[in-house]
């Protein structure tokens, strides 16, 4: 994975630190330029698709922007769409950072959601106990679901990429079964009963002031933001956070340094699955208040993309999830106004990741063109150019 974060800065002498800071600033600038160029490139591709649809791209982008940020309602819909993505993006980010490709966030999200729903409707408890219990159980359920591929990887050496995908499908069918048979609340549709009022996260409309009419944005966004801060702190200042980062940079080196890799990987993966599960429950008790069969597919995969878009940093993933969520909100409006399918956004974000991940493409562009950007871009690829490695 491209730069997973530098070595611990406190180990460097002061002069090196200053040079390091300059280098960091420069590489940050290069990185932002590259992200902006990637977004522009994908906007160009998007424009071609719009022209094919006989739509004026500039008009469509204005609609997209208005649909995402143009009114109070639009902003709250953006927040609503972004909330689950923040969880899945953080879950993906943590795993990717540790060097584990947890593509199973989707399934962990579902399993956490259904476990949270069950605790939400089956128990009668005061809010102060009920709500944390729902969140705790969903976290544990997500972690438990992640445990299967984790153990298979750590103890048996089976690649987590295949196993996490397989557990996604199993989770989908398992939750479908549960909603259709044992947990079914109504005979007509495959969905559970509503969760108790004590297990709900308030939507902003329901609060005094009634912000965000026409949206289902809810206070779960604050849980997401808290999680961002906690993860940032943990990764930066705690021992396990340090070990996670080191594991991602070089697992062999970390092993030599005396880090217990089994523990680090397993814990990283479990917390990743837990965050995904937590996101599932927050989406249920905030927006839906009951589990509908296949209520929301694709949050996991979009979270994977958002983490990659945010270059596997805590704040990067957070911003990318907000961006992705608001673009989705904008695209929902586009479906009405321009008849453009909203999958356009998934395509666009996929393309941005494509362009961003292609380190060598920028070298290629830089070497062919004599732009003033070229020097900046050329220096940005820190990796030695190994052919065929």
């Amino acid at each position: 994975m491209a730069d997973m974060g530098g070595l611990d800065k406190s180990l460097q002498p002061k002069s090196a630190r200053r040079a390091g800071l300059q280098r960091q600033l420069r590489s940050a600038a290069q990185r932002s330029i590259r992200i902006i160029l990637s977004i522009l490139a994908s906007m160009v591709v998007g424009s071609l698709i719009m022209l094919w649809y006989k739509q004026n791209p500039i008009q469509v982008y204005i609609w997209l922007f208005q649909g995402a940020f143009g009114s109070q309602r639009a902003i709250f819909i953006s927040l609503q769409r972004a909330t689950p993505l923040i969880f899945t993006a953080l879950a993906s980010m943590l795993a990717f950072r540790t060097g584990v490709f947890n593509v199973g966030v989707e399934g962990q999200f579902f399993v956490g959601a259904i476990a949270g729903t069950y605790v939400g409707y089956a128990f009668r408890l005061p809010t102060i106990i009920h709500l944390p219990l729902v969140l705790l159980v969903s976290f544990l359920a997500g972690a438990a679901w992640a445990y299967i591929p984790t153990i298979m990887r750590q103890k048996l050496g089976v690649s987590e990429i295949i196993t996490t995908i397989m557990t996604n499908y199993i989770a989908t069918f398992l939750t479908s079964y549960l909603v259709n048979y044992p947990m079914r609340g109504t005979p007509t549709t495959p969905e559970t009963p509503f969760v108790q009022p004590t297990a709900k996260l308030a939507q902003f409309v329901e609060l005094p002031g009634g912000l965000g009419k026409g949206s289902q944005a809810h206070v779960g966004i604050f849980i997401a933001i808290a999680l961002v801060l906690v993860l940032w702190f943990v990764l930066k200042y705690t021992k396990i956070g340090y070990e996670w980062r080191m594991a991602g940079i070089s697992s062999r080196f970390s092993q030599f340094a005396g880090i217990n890799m089994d523990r680090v990987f397993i814990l990283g993966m479990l917390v990743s699955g837990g965050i995904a599960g937590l996101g599932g429950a927050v989406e249920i008790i905030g927006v839906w208040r009951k589990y509908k069969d296949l209520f929301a597919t694709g949050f996991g995969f979009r979270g994977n993309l958002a983490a990659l878009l945010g270059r596997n940093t805590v704040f990067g993933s957070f911003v990318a999830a907000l961006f992705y969520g608001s673009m989705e909100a904008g695209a929902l409006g586009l479906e009405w106004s321009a008849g453009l399918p909203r999958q356009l956004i998934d395509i666009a974000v996929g393309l941005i990741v494509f362009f961003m991940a292609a380190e060598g493409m920028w070298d290629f562009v830089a070497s062919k063109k004599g732009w003033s950007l070229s020097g900046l871009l050329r220096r940005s690829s820190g990796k030695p150019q190994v052919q065929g490695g």
Partner: protein
Amino acid sequence: MDSALLAQIWDVLSRYVFNVANLQGMLRLSTPVVLAGLCALITDRAGILNIAGEGMILFGAWFAVAGSFFFHSSLAGVMAAILSGLVVGGLFALFSLKFRAHIIIMGIAINIFGNAATIFLTRAVFKQAGAFADPRIVGLGTINIPILKDIPVLGPLLSGYTAIVYLSWILVALTFVFLYRTPWGFHLRAVGEHPEAAATLGINVQAIRFGAVMASGVFAALAGVYLSLGHLQMFTEQMAAGRGFIGMAVNTFGAGEPLGVLLSSFLFGLVDTIGWRLQGERIMPVYFVSMVPYITTLVALTIYTVRQQRRRKAIVDNGVSR
């Protein structure tokens, strides 16, 4: 054991496991898995971790339907799918090999992209959501092998499938011949086993890998053709349903050998068929039947890996080096 019990066991086995209908089902359900397995195999042997099979299958399935729909010919559908496989494979190779994008990130991106793009195209081109079926889509049709089709058990077992089924078996044989009987295959294996050494021998590592990824695109596209034009002539969103990954598992389980891929795909097909049979007899709810291929993948991978490790450990214990 008394003979009554044995007879009963045989009765159950022949009813649920070894009968012509099941074996036919096995061959049918295994075909896309064989092709997905070849897709994984050819890149795996060239030393590339290609997880993009899923996205490539989706593109293949979509373009097969589109080609067949617009040109009123299943052959055009196959051609369109193969072309899409070459293009997607080419892009994947270009970005991951030449532009040095992280190959797993690229694979994840292609899979998500393939899913979104085929849903988008279905809505944009055919104005349909979820699935697209139309009488104007020409299916593949079945091939009845003369003489063979009249032999009692073998006839129904081996005759009367669509062309892709036979093609998948031929491709398994061709892949074997390519890998072990041609200089290109030798180069590919060399690149996969030790790229640096291969490079010093003057083998163009990049070119070989490029070719392998393009070939994997074609294999995946053919798997897609089978899904969309094989039995029901329709494209359904997310119809690859993890077969790209099951292909990777089959390749692992088959130890990266063409014949191994074929046999482990048959095993998958058989387990899958039995699952559907149990559902038909109302022994198991449909949701658990649908899980069967994925659970089989997990189990197969685990068995393979454990066995492999035991063998490696035995080698170390005996002080034998490879």
